[in-house]
């Protein structure tokens, strides 16, 4: 998943982007509103994290402009203002959730994961597809209840496919969502990840969870289970 982080405070931006990358996200960073608008409109993003107190364009305005430019990705707002009026205004401007500074990184990660999941139509933190279960909040994958050990990148690839289960995800999209723009792109890496995922999820060749569509990409083939609302 590829995130856009717009935050003017350098230490916070650097530490947050490092922690997001550590959690397996590709992160574009912008230090002010106009840079944020450029990245948000010129590069693919699955979600934007926007600080409300930006030096040039206020965060609220940036969100509005991104929405006007047709960008529908979820927006998580960071705000130092702990008053409900500000939260309400940000949400009205087009944001989807907020985190109040100072925050724990876990809080941001939890909100980011929830927003990504929601944007793809999943309403619960645990994604069910056939016997495969992926818990987005704890980042745990099980098949028929048995846990599967995945590396961070493998997890991100699987999450990407399962979030959009049933849809075709191109190799380029996967690359975009896994790496920053300055990363040297090598599509073979994706093939390697897919191969490893198939072996780990389906050691006995019974499930065939991931289909390869020649020239188009990959599809998570197991059917989504009904979302269980409590």
């Amino acid at each position, binding site marked *: 998943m590829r995130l856009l982080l717009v935050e003017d405070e350098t230490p916070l931006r650097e530490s947050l982007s490092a922690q997001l990358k550590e959690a397996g996200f590709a992160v574009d960073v912008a230090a002010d509103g106009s840079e944020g608008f450029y990245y948000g409109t010129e590069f693919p993003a699955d979600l934007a994290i926007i600080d409300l107190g930006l030096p040039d364009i206020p965060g609220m305005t940036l969100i509005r402009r991104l929405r006007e430019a047709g960008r529908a990705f979820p927006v998580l707002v960071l705000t130092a203002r*702990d*008053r*409900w009026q500000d939260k309400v205004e940000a*949400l*009205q401007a087009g944001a*989807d*959730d*907020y985190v109040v500074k100072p925050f724990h990184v876990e809080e941001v990660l939890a909100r980011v994961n*929830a927003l990504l999941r929601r944007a793809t139509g999943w309403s619960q933190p645990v994604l069910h597809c056939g016997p495969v279960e992926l818990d987005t909040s704890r980042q745990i994958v099980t098949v028929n209840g048995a846990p599967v050990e995945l590396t961070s990148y493998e997890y991100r690839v699987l999450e990407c496919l399962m979030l959009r289960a049933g849809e075709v995800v191109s190799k380029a999209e996967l690359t975009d969502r896994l790496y920053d723009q300055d990363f040297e792109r090598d599509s073979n890496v994706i093939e390697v990840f897919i191969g490893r995922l198939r072996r780990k999820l389906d050691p006995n060749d019974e499930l065939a969870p991931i289909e390869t569509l020649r020239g188009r990409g990959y599809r998570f083939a197991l059917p989504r289970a009904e979302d269980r609302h409590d």
Partner: protein
Amino acid sequence: MPSSLSARLLLSVSVVLVLFFGLTVAALDRLFREAGERAMRNVLEVHLIALLAAAEGSGSQGLSMPEELPEERFAQPGSGLFGQIRDENGEVVWRSASSVGAPLRDAPVLAPGEREVTNLALFGDMPVMRLAMGVDWEFADGTTRRFEFDVAESLDLYHAQVERFRAQLFSGFLGLMLLLLAALAMLLRWILRPLRRVEAEIAEVEAGSRSELGTGYPSELSGVTENMNALIRDERARLKRYRNTLGNLAHSLKTPLAVMRSALQGGGASAGELEAQIARMDAIVGSQLKRAATAGGTALGDAPVPVGPVASELRDALNKVYADKAPRCDFEIADDAVFHGDREDLTDLLGNLLDNAYKWCDHATRVTASAVDWAGRRRRGLMLVVEDDGPGIGASDLRRVLARGARADERAGGHGIGLAVVTEIVEMSGGSISIDASALGGARVEARIPPR
């Protein structure tokens, strides 16, 4: 202009009274003098007719008066009544004893039937009114001669009457005016007594022997005193808020200070460690002071905030944040449910309550708002109830969740910081908050906020 209201009123009423009484006195005086003059003229007329009746034609066309005159004052010198008769040549035929040495009239003799009334001075300085009349006297032999009869009466008595009348009039009106002014002054004392009470009570509030102004003021003043009370309460709440903030600030700054001191004493204080503590202190200072500075009930000048629109905004916002859970949120908000204070405070108050309800509910939340009568106030206060169908709050947790000064990093803990903020806002406005079980199954938080 005098600075006292009663002095202003007394002064203006005095001016009006003086004008009014002055005009009345002048009019009455004039009426009295006119009536007096008319009476004088009648008296002179009677005297003249009496003289005419007393005069006798004596032989060959002469007139004579008897020794015994109809009015004996004619015979007394200095009596103030004078008489004289002249023939057609202006020769004095008869003159009363009182008028010896002072011709009553020496102008040409009047034609028969002609009358003349004149005020003049006799003997140099005695003011008199004189009536002169020309007559044709018919003698026994059938011949007629013209004569002029003059009578005059001294005005001294009349003037004395006028003086006495004026004196009575002036003293009467002066007394009446003083009486009216005295009554007005007493009335003013009585009417202005509530104002003096306000003054005294404000002095007591300043001195600290009284917490706010009392009740039972007349309706013209109760608006002022209620607003004054709102101002006093607001000021007091603001002070309390500042004290709380300073207390919290001091308390929360001690922890990073202790960390820094122990790091320094241990000798191994790294720049990064100190930097982190400094950043923490900076954040604490920023958030605490900002809250203290921006929030606060406004007593005057701001219109009351209707609850409905604020609640709708918050529901839209929270529906977005809790899209996974998508709970139901019912409103029962009366049109006249208004919050007497700052809009941001209402947003914080309801935002925190509703956020908690969304967080803890299973499916359903409810916001109820209505206007409620408030003891001792003309305007109605607000009752705000937020409920959910979650697990509720146990009795043992109640005191903890309502306690002030829950630290910001405890905020993930749910009901904690949110309710502390709510409590602060409600208490600052002079209201009350209570928590019990909801008919929905979960917690029910009820806040009551007084009118201004």
